[in-house]
């Protein structure tokens, strides 16, 4: 990216980014410098990719005209802490309107892949059409700019995501990788394929410590395009950390927002895992398909209990000071640390644990590990499986998937393997389609075709306004538990002012665990120090808001009407008395909330899409 003038707001075209277009059908590549059209383009990520997607009329995800866009954010590859993000955008095979049209979608991932791509000289790659044979793309830093090669990839087929990465690493020592697992290869029966991203920790240790761009089936899109892997190769170009940047990074680590995610030994709460303690205090931890039982069964997944079976290490991403994630290791007979078992974050822990009736951490770790290796989105897979188990509990006489039900570890394990290998399309195509086949949609836990994360819809009516996944694109999933706010005014305000700004992190290249809002001066300072651009907090917020609203407008263009903006019927029809939080989500409340939110949003959505 070249910055010709520091006033990117008044003259966004003075910021020029480098794009590569890969025609997978022809096997050709072209590169161009593209001037930014607006601040959303400058900030990057989905703020830029959605403007490209909006220029295309796509009626089915698996078609040659649907591009897969790989890009980075303004701060990816910079010295700002957490600046690691790579983004994948496309019309999703999974997320779909009731009219049957695919929705635009993005998914973000960390690791060191985004940095390497940017350091190779590219800010964006658009993969067009599809290859007739399996290929992988190599982007290398060349003497006169980025070099691109498209190479045969048949030798990688069938390998897990981790195995593909390690195989490629033998050939490309100074590189990082984005690959698909078997799930993405079986894109026709698996719409929830994830993109698996390599990490330094993984490459050094040989252990499967990958990251994922999981949501919306971007890995399945790669599979459709016969693009099995992407290699980004360059030297380490992390710039010198200036004294002012050191201050920015100190504030990233020290601000209370990020400090919460630090290990307990550092005064934090121990990563997102700690959410389980908080939500269990309200009996709001999802159990048995998002239906808490009001008991203490989930205690088996509390950290002190898991520590009895595993050695737990808090670890961080590449050069990040926020050690937010907890890697579990088996313990050897002599008490020493053994092999890597799994990464325990709140989402997979619950969705492969209490929400499918399993509270034994060893079993949960194995299921998480399997999902990761096969390259599926843990949220979509876990939530679809919990529906199958729920359905079978209700219909023992005509069950799905050989009658597997809650708590049956061996059968669930087998179901995950079969799904990841492309043999169970009922599960692999997600819960919306499955529930429409069975005719029982009320307890299918999705909104707008995308499976819900491990926060109860009973406590978050704002899921309806998330544009790319329930908690990643609308920051209200803990609002009721955290604030206890039940008023209509409160919810309209939080959706239309704060919640939507969550998506800003998926533009600028930083991780959400920086823990401050987009309007915080820290974001503006970070941009200024890393790039020299002078962008005020108000201008950042306005650009993020436009990008979010463009996403909402794009949903409407893809056939989403008012009926799509809803929650699973069970939430309205059968409030769960076991949840110790106010039951705010009535049909009346929800209808009024929607009406008032649309009244704010709709006028602002005018003119955000091309004619």
């Amino acid at each position, binding site marked *: 990216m070249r910055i010709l003038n520091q006033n990117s707001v008044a003259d966004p075209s003075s910021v020029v980014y480098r794009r590569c277009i890969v025609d997978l059908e022809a096997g050709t590549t072209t590169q161009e410098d593209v001037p930014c059209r607006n601040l959303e383009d400058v900030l990057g990520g989905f703020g830029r990719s959605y403007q490209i997607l909006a220029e295309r009329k796509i009626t089915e995800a698996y078609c040659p005209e649907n591009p897969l866009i790989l890009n980075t954010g303004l701060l990816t590859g910079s010295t700002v802490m957490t600046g690691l993000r790579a983004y994948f955008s496309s019309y999703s095979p999974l997320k779909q309107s009731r009219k049957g049209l695919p929705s635009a979608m993005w998914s973000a991932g960390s690791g060191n892949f985004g940095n390497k791509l940017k350091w190779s000289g590219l800010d964006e790659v658009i993969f067009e059409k599809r290859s007739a044979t399996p290929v992988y793309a190599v982007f290398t830093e060349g003497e006169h700019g980025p070099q691109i090669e498209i190479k045969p990839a048949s030798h990688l087929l069938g390998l897990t995501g981790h195995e593909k990465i390690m195989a490629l690493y033998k050939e490309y020592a100074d590189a990082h990788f984005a690959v698909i697992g078997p799930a993405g290869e079986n894109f026709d029966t698996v719409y929830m394929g994830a993109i698996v991203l390599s990490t330094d920790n993984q490459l050094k240790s040989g252990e499967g410590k990958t990251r994922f761009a999981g949501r919306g089936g971007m890995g399945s899109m790669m599979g459709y395009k016969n693009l099995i892997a992407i290699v980004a190769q360059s030297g380490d170009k992390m710039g010198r950390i200036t004294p002012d940047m050191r201050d920015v990074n100190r504030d990233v680590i020290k601000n*209370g*927002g990020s400090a*919460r*995610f630090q290990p*307990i030994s550092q005064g*934090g*709460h*121990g990563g*997102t895992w*700690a*959410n389980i*303690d*908080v939500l269990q*205090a309200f009996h709001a931890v999802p159990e048995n398909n998002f239906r808490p039982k009001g008991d203490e069964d989930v205690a088996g997944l509390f950290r002190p209990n898991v520590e009895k079976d595993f050695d737990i290490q808090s670890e961080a991403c590449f050069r990040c000071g926020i050690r*937010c994630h907890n890697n579990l290791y088996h313990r050897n007979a002599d008490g020493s640390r053994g092999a890597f078992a799994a990464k325990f*974050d*709140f*989402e997979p822990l619950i969705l492969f644990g209490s929400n499918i009736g399993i509270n034994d951490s060893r079993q949960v770790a194995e299921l998480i590990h399997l999902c990761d290796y096969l390259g599926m989105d843990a949220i979509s897979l876990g939530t679809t499986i919990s529906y199958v188990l729920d359905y079978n509990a209700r219909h023992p006489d005509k069950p799905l998937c050989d009658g597997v039900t809650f708590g049956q570890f061996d059968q669930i394990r087998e179901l995950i393997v079969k799904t990841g290998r492309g043999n169970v399309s009922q599960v692999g195509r997600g819960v919306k389609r499955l529930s429409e086949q069975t005719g029982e949609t009320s307890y299918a836990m999705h909104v707008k075709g995308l499976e819900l*994360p*491990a*926060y109860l819809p009973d406590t978050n009516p704002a899921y309806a306004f998330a544009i790319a996944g329930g*908690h*990643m694109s609308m*920051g209200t*999933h*803990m609002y009721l*538990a*955290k*604030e*206890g706010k039940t008023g209509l005014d409160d919810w309209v305000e939080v959706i239309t002012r704060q919640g939507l700004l969550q998506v800003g992190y998926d533009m600028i290249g930083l991780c*959400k*665990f920086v*823990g401050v809002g987009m309007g915080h001066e820290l974001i503006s300072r970070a941009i200024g120090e890393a790039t020299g651009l002078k962008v005020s907090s108000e201008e950042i917020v306005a650009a993020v808001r436009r990008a979010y609203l463009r996403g909402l407008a794009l949903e409407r263009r893809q056939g989403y009407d008012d009926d799509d903006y809803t929650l699973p019927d069970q939430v309205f029809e059968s409030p769960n008395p076991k949840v*110790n939080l106010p039951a705010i989500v009535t049909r009346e409340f929800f209808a009024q909330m929607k009406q008032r939110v649309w009244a704010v949003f709709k006028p602002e959505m005018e003119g955000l899409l091309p004619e």
Partner: protein
Amino acid sequence: MQITVKLYGSLCIGRFQSAVREYTDGSTIQTIVTDLGIPSEYLIRLKNGYHAPLEEVLHNNDTVSLLPMLDGG
């Protein structure tokens, strides 16, 4: 007066899970937070099961629950 204090997650470490403690009349949730050495930022506070502000005045036999405020996924 006697207040039942319940702590959750990492807040229990080095403290307790549940205890009945003596406080003087007029004490608030902030009094307890300060007494226990817990940072008052990013804290969920409940009085008798309902969300309450730090300055909420307590009465004999109230229960105060303190939870770490997290986020993310």
